[in-house]
């Protein structure tokens, strides 16, 4: 995926019109002649105008019930009126401080309820609205300090709720046997559009696998399971060139990497998986699965099992002070003095009976620890 494709992946196709309307408003509104000469007011007018344009344009190609569409239009009109009030110098601050939290709460209710997938348009519009709210409270006597703290808290809480709700919905989709397929929500591809820590390519094909794809996925799981039996003892994996991750030698999902296999030009080779995953603790270890990793970042991995065998990548923050690695926030940011990058695509294949399936992106920690307790072999780690 190139950068342009990645950018569009974050935007729900149903929000395309809203994106265009928001960009046009961001260009046109600040150029309007007249109005307040104070920069803060002009910024507020622009931000409210952008929020209004996005909300009004949302129903244009957004599937949903008429009530939701009506809600978008009404909230868009309110934001438009507030932008107009800023323009003509009428009172707008208190109303903005009421409307912004109400809009954010409504959005969170829809996202948490699973009726809407958080995407870049949703989060960016929320940022625009929060900023407008922050500017609104600046002009109200006695509210400055409290308002600043409130604005910061809203940023944190909103981002955290969106991120957690997205992950929960994604995990539920993976674990649900009634879902269209493992890791494929198709129209509601949770995680694909928030792009916060996990990058998933949208699956362009059918949501349900064909018989051939199911067979191929089963064959891949079986051949992987068979091939890595030689690494059941963690010492054998270490002898074969796998090495411990930095600083982490125990836990329910310890990933051992093989640098030679990561650059051998082989893709999805059960004989040479780039990573092995073990549960390790209390002097015992048990092999749980493997991770296949593409050699180059941005290259899509092959999916013989169609929607069953999905690959994902991680966009990470690499901090220089102090050295460390984290994940990108829902606002697309990293801590200061850190750089961001997306590592090559990867796919897990579990060789134990992971309750979420053999191709799930993760494994339940308590389940892995219980499996270690029951099946772990003595290890010298």
């Amino acid at each position, binding site marked *: 995926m190139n950068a342009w494709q*990645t950018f569009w992946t974050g935007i729900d196709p149903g929000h395309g019109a809203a994106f265009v309307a928001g960009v046009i408003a961001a260009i046109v509104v600040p150029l309007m002649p007249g109005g307040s000469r104070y920069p803060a007011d002009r910024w507020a007018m622009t931000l409210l105008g952008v929020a209004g344009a996005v909300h009004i344009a949302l129903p244009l190609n957004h599937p949903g019930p008429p009530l939701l569409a009506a809600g978008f239009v009404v909230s868009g009109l309110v934001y438009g009126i507030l932008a107009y009030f800023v323009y003509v110098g009428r009172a707008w601050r208190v109303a903005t401080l009421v409307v912004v939290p109400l809009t954010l709460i409504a959005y969170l209710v829809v996202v948490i309820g699973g009726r809407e997938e958080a995407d870049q348009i949703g989060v960016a519009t929320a940022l625009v609205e929060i900023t407008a709210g922050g500017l609104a409270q600046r002009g109200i006597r006695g509210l400055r300090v409290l308002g600043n703290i409130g604005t910061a808290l809203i940023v944190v809480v909103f981002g955290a709720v969106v991120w957690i709700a997205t992950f929960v919905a994604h995990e539920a989709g993976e674990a649900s046997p009634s879902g269209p397929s493992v890791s494929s929500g198709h129209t509601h591809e949770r995680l694909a559009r928030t*792009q916060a820590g996990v990058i998933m390519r949208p699956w362009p094909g059918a949501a349900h696998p064909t018989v051939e794809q199911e067979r191929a996925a089963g064959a891949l799981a079986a051949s992987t399971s068979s091939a890595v039996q030689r690494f059941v003892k963690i010492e054998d994996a270490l002898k074969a060139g796998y090495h411990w991750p930095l600083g982490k030698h125990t836990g329910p999902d310890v990933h051992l990497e093989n640098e030679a296999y990561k650059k051998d030009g082989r893709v999805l080779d059960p004989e040479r998986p780039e990573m092995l995953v073990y549960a390790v603790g209390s002097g015992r270890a048990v092999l749980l699965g493997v991770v296949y990793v593409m050699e180059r970042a941005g290259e899509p991995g092959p999916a013989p099992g169609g929607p069953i065998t999905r690959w994902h990548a991680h966009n990470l923050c690499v901090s220089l002070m102090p050295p460390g690695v984290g994940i990108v926030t829902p606002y*697309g940011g990293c801590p200061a003095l850190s750089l961001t*990058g997306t590592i090559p695509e990867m796919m897990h294949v579990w060789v134990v009976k992971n309750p979420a399936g053999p191709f799930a992106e993760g494994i339940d920690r308590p389940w892995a620890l219980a499996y270690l307790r029951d099946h772990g072999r003595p290890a010298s780690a």
Partner: protein
Amino acid sequence: MIGELLFMGGNPVYILEPLVRTVVTAVLAGLMHRRTGALFGLMAMQVVSLAGFTISAGLGLLPQLSFTPTLTGLLTGVALPAAILVLCLQEWNAGRRARAAQ
């Protein structure tokens, strides 16, 4: 800041740098109308942010990494520091004109 700390695995070591940045930004923003040095400090911080974004984009050219541009990332990593930089430059110009008129 707190959000970024959470996303760095909750490691308290990462509280220090964002805390310093937040306090310095608040202090510089409060002083920028009175002291040119504060204005320049604020501008320098935005330049560092923009440089970080540019370096991250450049790192995406390496085979092991790709760059993921997102709408929110562009807003917080480019638009916001660029807007603050422009506002600071306007403030600086206004100050220069005021001093020249005296």
